[in-house]
């Protein structure tokens, strides 16, 4: 191994894991090792700040100090693998779910998933969604078996708790509104004309979209929806989702 590689291994361990004994031989002036704290601080601060920006509701719920402690531990456990930090932190919701000090907040990990879905949605492709005209042009047979992929920006977040209601009021309201529901809740987050949209789905609608996003054909998905909500109108539900821009273009559509 080259001297340069040995130095870089030691430096990375020193500023990321603490302790600077093994780096001493590489320093021209060991007395100036205090400067290493600048790098230690930069690395952690930049990444923790980034997580705080991307998980604003989680931070609001647990408070700044708790959040920064939790985020710093996540950064050490699961540092970035890419120089593109815009979407760093995808593993944070799972980390939160397994973080013992947060165990009492049973909905916190699902709130984190909603924060994550919002940021992924914002930076997803702005490609044209499936157009109502394109759907209208399908004959009955093709319509029944049509498989519709979600628009690249669309995310379904299901929770056994009232995670979406908690998330929405903490994200949008200066003074949070009391949450009446206990859950479960499923939310849809998607992008329409460049803006992130989100709403809570009814039970039938949630089953319908879950089936479609899992690759089921339209008539099978409608069956799933009716099984949980017998008086749902699947056609009307579908038309409104298409009009909202929730689906990706069908194969063969011009982009």
């Amino acid at each position, binding site marked *: 191994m080259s001297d340069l590689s040995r130095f870089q291994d030691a430096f990375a361990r020193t*500023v990321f894991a603490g302790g600077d004994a093994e780096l001493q031989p590489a320093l021209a002036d060991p007395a100036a090792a205090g400067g290493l704290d600048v790098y230690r601080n930069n690395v952690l601060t*930049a990444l923790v700040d980034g997580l705080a920006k991307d998980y604003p509701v989680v931070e609001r719920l647990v408070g700044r100090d708790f959040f920064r402690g939790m985020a710093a531990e996540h950064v050490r456990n699961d540092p970035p693998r890419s*120089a*593109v930090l815009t979407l760093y932190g995808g593993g944070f919701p799972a980390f939160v779910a397994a973080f013992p000090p947060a165990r009492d907040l049973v909905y916190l990990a699902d709130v984190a998933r909603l924060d994550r879905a919002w940021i992924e949605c914002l930076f*997803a492709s*702005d490609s044209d969604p499936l157009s109502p005209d394109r759907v209208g042009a399908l004959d009955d047979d093709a319509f029944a078996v049509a498989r519709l992929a979600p628009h690249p920006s669309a995310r379904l977040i299901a929770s056994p708790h009232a995670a979406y209601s908690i998330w929405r009021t903490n994200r949008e309201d200066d003074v949070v509104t009391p949450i009446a529901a206990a859950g479960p809740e499923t939310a849809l987050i998607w992008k329409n004309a460049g803006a992130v949209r989100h709403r809570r789905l009814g039970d039938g609608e949630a089953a319908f979209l879950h089936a479609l996003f899992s690759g089921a054909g339209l008539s099978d998905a409608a069956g799933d929806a009716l099984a949980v909500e017998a008086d749902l109108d699947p056609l009307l539900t579908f038309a409104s989702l298409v009009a909202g821009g929730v689906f990706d273009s069908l194969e063969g559509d011009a982009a």
Partner: protein
Amino acid sequence: MTAPPPPHAGIGLKPEHYRAVRECGDAGLWLEVHPENYMTDGGPRLAWLELIRADKDVSLHGVGMSLGGDEPLDVDHLKRWADLVGRFDPVRISEHVAWSRRGGVYYADLFPLPTTREALDRLCANIDQMQTALGRRILIENPSLYVPLARELDEPEFLVEACRRTGCGLLLDVNNVYVSAHNMRRDAGAYLDAIPADLVGEIHLAGHAADAGGRDLLIDSHGAPVADAVWALYAHALARVGPQPTLIERDADIPSFDVLMEERGRAETALTAAKEPVHV
């Protein structure tokens, strides 16, 4: 033959200023972005940059290539870079003389490089790889330093040698010269005097801060106006290398667009006044 007009001053493009920049009628204003922030499938940053690029020059200034890392460059990252270069046709491309990637982890900072012959060879190989992948000449930026490392060459000598061997140019960050000179107990003026004028293709100006930890260190924070001492060093640099496109960098505690443009105006005035250098 008339002399070309002097180069202009630009600002680092921040999301807070997208609309104001788009609506700004100053023909000389150019913008610099960190390409990493635009490596997304879609979203508002790319949409704004398209609008702004329609009538203003844009330069790409990378922070994540890890040119000094003792391993080949990340080819996925190079591919994303090449896509942005193709899409936005930047007027200049630059990266840092630093490293940030090791063993598959990205450390999100600019770690320092010892100025050894071995490090120089690695840096040159990586600059070659980047220039080849992008099909463009790049500029490399002098670092801000907080710990003294092994040294076989003085830093200007190290940078100049890298430029001569790879054909790249220098992005002279005057604030970094000032900060490193203070932290490493070097002479900032002597540093500038060791930089050949013909290598410099861009200049950076930024604010710094005293170390909050109480050590006698200056931190390259980009979170304050450019210090008077750095403006004085900038005048020294202009007198030596001549007018070069100059960027006001501000990444924290972002002021209003108008306030930032006033600071940019100060650089613009200095550039207009600067004479071509006497080559020595």
